[in-house]
């Protein structure tokens, strides 16, 4: 057991995967010599050498496109898109190439590749360095999308993504990188698509992921002081997502709040709400309420961004609404 930061847990996962498999290679902008903009890949160049840990030019389309070709030819590339906003520049490689290669080539190829992308975080990074665009990717058949909320999950989901035979996008919330916590020497494995119930409660279910999971825990503590017990499901994976776990929780609480940092409209919560309004219709005792960012680009000024980003207060208000 060691105390590490969230980013260091990812670093250890990358190192352990590289240690165990010479086909795992790392490339992206400033990931080698500089150790990544958030220090996540620090030390890996020294440890694994310049052949397997490479700085690329500022070429997102070629980074992800090359990951596709590398994965088709025997490597297990892990590439980094410095900010999720820059995935816009790599969308062809993600959507038309990586996602479809297995299917459109009749299963001849599987693409064991990982694309890491930091999103959100509320660090005043402005409209082009703060977006949570995971719904775009979860909408594309052929991609998997995970988003860890805890230090053990940051390790385990990164390992699971690298071990997976298909393209996996690992979404990392920037606000979590510096969070400190315990990482077991042998962190338990997490299967992609399996949620975690991080708090049990009888009154309402809060479904969330990433940095909003600790926010939901904070809200739940405040609600508990007034006698409202919420159950919190940390999805961990968005594609595939653990519909069974959410449905089972809904069957216990009969009330549902969905929380994410992404813009509420057409966000991941829309899919979860729609599925629960269908498969969970008989369980619902109230409206399904979503908490997400308003329909505007992430603003820069601190006070604006604080208002923009969902917080415990808004989660509490949403739970009160479904309890009403």
């Amino acid at each position, binding site marked *: 057991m060691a105390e590490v930061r969230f980013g260091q847990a990812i670093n250890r996962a990358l190192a352990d995967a590289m240690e165990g498999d010479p*086909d795992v*290679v790392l490339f992206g902008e400033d990931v080698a010599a500089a150790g990544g903009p958030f220090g996540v890949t620090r030390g890996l160049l020294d440890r694994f050498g310049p*052949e*397997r840990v*490479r700085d*690329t*030019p500022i*070429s997102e*389309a*070629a980074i*992800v*496109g*090359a*990951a*596709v*070709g*590398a*994965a*088709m*030819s*025997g*490597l297990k*590339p892990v590439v980094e898109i410095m900010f999720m906003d820059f995935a816009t520049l790599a969308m*062809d*490689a993600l959507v*038309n*190439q990586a996602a479809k*290669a*297995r*299917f*459109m*080539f*009749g*299963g*001849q*190829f*599987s693409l064991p590749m990982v694309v890491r992308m930091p999103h959100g975080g509320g660090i005043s990074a402005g409209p082009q360095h703060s977006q949570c665009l995971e719904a775009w990717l979860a909408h594309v*058949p*052929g991609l*998997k999308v995970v988003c860890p909320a805890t230090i053990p999950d940051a390790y385990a989901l990164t390992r699971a993504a690298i071990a*997976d*035979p*298909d393209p996996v996008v690992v979404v990392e919330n920037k606000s979590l990188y510096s969070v400190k916590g315990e990482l077991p020497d042998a962190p338990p494995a997490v299967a992609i698509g399996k949620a975690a119930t991080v708090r049990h409660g009888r009154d309402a279910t809060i479904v969330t992921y990433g940095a909003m999971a600790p926010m939901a825990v904070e809200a739940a503590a405040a609600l508990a002081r007034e006698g409202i017990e919420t159950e919190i499901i940390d999805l961990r994976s968005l594609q595939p997502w653990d519909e069974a776990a959410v449905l089972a929780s809904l069957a216990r609480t009969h009330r549902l709040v969905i929380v994410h940092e992404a813009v509420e409209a057409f966000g991941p919560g829309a899919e979860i709400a729609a599925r629960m309004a269908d498969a969970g219709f008989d369980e619902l005792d109230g409206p399904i309420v979503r908490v997400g960012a308003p329909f505007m680009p992430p603003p820069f000024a601190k006070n604006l961004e604080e208002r923009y980003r969902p917080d415990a207060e808004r989660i509490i208000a949403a739970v009160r609404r479904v309890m009403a």
Partner: protein
Amino acid sequence: MAAADKASPLGLLRVMHLIREAELRLAQLFADGEIPGFIHLSVGQEGVAAGVGAALGPGDTLASNHRGHGHALAKGLDLDRFFLEIMGKAEGICGGRGGSMHVADAAVGMLGANGIVAAGLPIAVGSALAHQVRRTGAISSVFFGDGALAEGVMHESLNLAAIWKLPVLFVCESNGWSEFSPTAHQIAADPCALAASHGIAARSVDGNDAVAVCEAAQQYVSEIRGGGGPRFLECRTTRVRGHFEGDPQKYREGEGAARDDASDPIVRLERRLAADGVPGTEIAAAARAAAERVTAAVARARAGNLPDFAASLRDVYSPAAG
């Protein structure tokens, strides 16, 4: 075919005839409604596919584009499964999921035709990275048209390949057209100058001379295999047909009927072989053999089964482990 035979003038002729015959048959099948969707033919450009294909080894990888039938067949993609695929059958090389624009064959290192212009370039760069890191001794290659020179990822890919000295052969098929527009109106620079500006050695050859293409490709493949880094080969060629089958080509009306036999890579090579004293029966046999193979492949494709929807749905992701 052995490598030496493949690169011999007769070997090149056989491959060109196979491609021509296959594509003209595809055109007929398409016109008759036996092939849905749309297809892009490389009639007139066979010298490039055959010449480069003969210079590549079986372990080398190849990424292609929307006009990729010739590239696939030159790399050795099975003819029966090629027709089965394009006719939308379950036994097709991609199970009927991809069709003309997505023929691929992992067994021969054919990483796929591609519906997105220039998308094959970074894929070939990544494949070259795999060859470099895994020390396979193989190289990768990519075919793209002169229209692809306008895509941003083309430049990213050339630069990345140059920076990392990757074993990749870039093959630009300059047929003068960017879909419906003359490339001269679309690209300001000379293709080889573009490559050179990215630090990549480049040369231009007559793409309608299969022997010249093959010699140039062999030279570059040998330099790349020797650790020389990427090379860029421009092959100037002729797109005889439209951008896609059924393209009315109104934009080409001014061109007249000037496309003569002199630019046809098959006619040219046949004349050369005859001049070199190769018996006419041997030359004619190449065309006949291709026609017979294609006829048999089309018959098998017609007899193929329709793909199963549930099986397709299962193939979006790899089967769960365990």
